[in-house]
């Protein structure tokens, strides 16, 4: 029993963490929290199922096309819902524009893809029971993504430019960094991360349009717990959330587990609005 809670908890937690990283990646270059983060992960599953099962492509090609598709949706997010409202960031119009875009993505997915969960292919065919690939794939994907991002941010020029913009947008622009292009790139990157979340979690969550709203919330919780923009916090928060949720499923049953998760979320937010690992806010006056 404990093993199965651990397996499914870590798997779900890894997916939540990846969605959290998606939020953070978009936030880092634009200071925008986007409602499309969860939808990107949903599309990861839907695109994956569409390319590999419906269109019968090999898994690797399907993965590649899925990630490209999600990256394009990420770029569309930047162009449609983020760029036009950046100049008045303090009015928080991005909450509305990204919500609108997220609703549109979800609705089109529901109508074009269908409202029933649809199958996702078995990717490797390795493991069974609690060691089934559907449990460890998201965890591995999460680990690889995090390591990849760390490498990108620390060792590559583009990654360092991302970090520079995340730390001080104004100064970075003054240094002549192509802030706009970097922002577009970071949204594409966020799309890829979301796509990885959906694709690696496809066997667990299936290709289902309603996963978007679900992951939007459960992916946001790790961000709130770990502190905005803090990827390591998101991973810790995500895994903790996954384990907590599966344990609650086990202990108090389906109906009350979402109540438990939400109660935890609110309590932590009220106690530590900056998250458990977050930094304090800037000066107001």
């Amino acid at each position, binding site marked *: 029993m404990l093993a199965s809670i651990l397996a499914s908890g870590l798997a779900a937690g890894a997916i939540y963490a990846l969605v959290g990283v998606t939020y953070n990646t978009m936030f880092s270059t634009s200071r925008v929290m986007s409602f499309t983060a969860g939808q990107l992960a949903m599309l990861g599953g839907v695109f994956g199922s569409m390319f590999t099962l419906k269109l019968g492509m090999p898994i690797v090609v399907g993965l590649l096309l899925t990630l490209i598709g999600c990256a394009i949706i990420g770029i569309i997010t930047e162009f449609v819902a983020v760029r036009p409202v950046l100049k008045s960031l303090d009015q928080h119009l991005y909450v509305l524009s990204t*919500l609108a875009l997220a*609703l549109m993505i979800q609705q*089109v997915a529901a109508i074009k893809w269908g409202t029933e969960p649809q199958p996702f292919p078995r990717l490797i065919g390795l493991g069974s029971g609690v060691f089934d690939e559907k449990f460890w794939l998201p965890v591995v994907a999460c680990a690889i993504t995090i390591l990849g991002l760390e490498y990108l941010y620390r060792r590559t020029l583009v990654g360092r430019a991302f970090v520079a913009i995340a730390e001080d947008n104004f100064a970075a622009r003054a240094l002549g960094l192509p802030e706009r292009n970097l922002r577009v790139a970071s949204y594409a990157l966020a799309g890829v991360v979301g796509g990885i979340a959906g694709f690696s979690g496809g066997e667990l969550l299936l290709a289902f349009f309603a996963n978007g709203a679900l992951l939007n919330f459960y992916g946001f919780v790790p961000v709130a717990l770990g502190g905005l923009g803090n990827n390591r916090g998101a991973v810790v928060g995500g895994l903790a959330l996954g384990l907590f949720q599966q344990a609650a499923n086990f202990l108090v049953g389906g109906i009350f587990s979402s109540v438990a998760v939400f109660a935890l979320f609110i309590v932590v937010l009220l106690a530590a609005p900056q998250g458990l690992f977050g930094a304090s806010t800037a000066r107001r006056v």
Partner: protein
Amino acid sequence: MTAVTATPAHQEAGAIRAALPQLAPFLGILALAVMLPFISNDYWALIGTRAAIYWVLVSGLNLVVGFAGHLAIGYVALLTLGAYTTSVLVAGNVLPPVPVFAALPVAAIVGAMFGVIVGLPALRLRTFYFAMSTLGFATIVTQIALAWQSVTGGGIGISGPEFPAPFNTAWGFYFLCTAFAAFTTWMSANIARSRFGRALIAVRDAEVAAEATGISKPKMLIAIFLFAGALAAIAGGLFASLQTYITPDAFTFDLSVLFFIAILIGGRGSILGPMLGTIILTILPEIAAPLAAWSTFLYAVLLLVIVLVMPGGIAALLDFRNRRPLASNRAILPRPAALADIVRQRAGGSALALRDISLSFGNVRAIDRLDLDVAPGQIHGLIGPNGSGKTSTLNVISGYYAARAGTMTLGDAALPPGMPALRAARGIARTFQTPRVIGEASVLQNVMIGGTIEGRASFVEAMLSLPRNRQDERMLAAKARGLLGVVGLEPLADVRADRLQHSELRFIEIARALMLDPDFLLLDEPAAGLSSDEIERLAGLIKAISGRGTGVLLVEHHADLIFDICHQVTVLNLGRTLAAGTPAEIRVHKEVVSAYLGG
């Protein structure tokens, strides 16, 4: 004092005449609503009732979203709560059955309480976080309705309450709901037009300035969350009756999105706009039936278009008055003499004293052991190079920063560190380096915000427009108009503040600060960006203010202005006092001359 106590009767009639163009659309909608039974059938009675019920909820939510600017996207939670509370009470599942007209007020009380609980995170959480937390509440309420089977009927649900005759027919119920809608419109309009409504917008658009005028954000928000929660719960009770039967799946997220988007389509800070938005969104899916599957998609497109193309919503489209061009050659012509009619003459009074104040940010010492005295009726200049701690000093006095060490006293009483919202009550008013005015409010409203704490009417009195609130409003409006005359902006009183020039905003801030009739006025670079003519008039104005006994602390870079009008000058450098004395002394102070005046 003549301007303040102008004859009320005359003003009342004038006010009604002035309000008529704003009132007309509401009366038109009401007239259409009354005519509906004669031109249509039960189906349109249902749709009309639905629009009225949704508006009962939206009229409250509008104050939260449109006025206070909190993005509560999960308000269907409170509709659910009200629907179940009313239905359960009427059905008698827990207590003996209650008549529906008794159940509705109970639901309203429950709704008000939960409105605060749902809204509480807004006091600490930022926009996106708050949106997410309301979304979470929406999910939870449905889950609880499902799980609590013995009371709510679980998935099988529960019958909605039935209203007694004559409200048990389609049209009877329609008129009942329309009456509710008209009543809530009136109440929410009363709040919106009162100092509470202005304070909400102030907290939304200029939170820092709102604090300086003594507006308490938690109190404001709790009041409107109570109000919006109660209305949402009443709407829920009516909704349950309209549906005849409620199950958890009737309370969809789409419904929540409808409420939310209706407000944004309508436009922030408007009542007519969201009302039209609600009506349009209720009817739209009916006349576009073939597009039923796409209705949420259409809402989303509408939302995106509104945000990107028309952020002002319907209200901005209908705002013809603010499309008239303003005179381009207008000048600010203060009439300092008129100050005598509005601001009381002080004799003596206590001094504001800072002793040994220190403040640091990390390792940087912004203020280092500063002593400063501002005497009543005196103008005290505070100068120094950038980063010398001038604005930091103002912020310590007005409570935005808590000094690490040192004491502040006002007369004999200590001024507690921090707590900016309590400064206004102590008679300290201020302006800001970058003017913090509410762009979407009129100039007059911006100034009236300064007097928020002077109002005596309670929130409930304002909601019901009782005499004390009307008195407050008359008093504040007359005083604000008078002060606009003093600072020379009277002709622009009804113009949206975001259409004004930078220099005019500076004078608005002074007028707003004077609304408090302050003992001490802190001015943060009031001359920045002003022409030399304007600076001259500003000097006259400041002198007149101190002439009424108000102590002025003036942070400024314009040395001429400082030396021209100040009684005392303190020169800061690196957070420390470099020199202090009369202008004549400072002018010849060696270090000051070499370090700062560059002479």
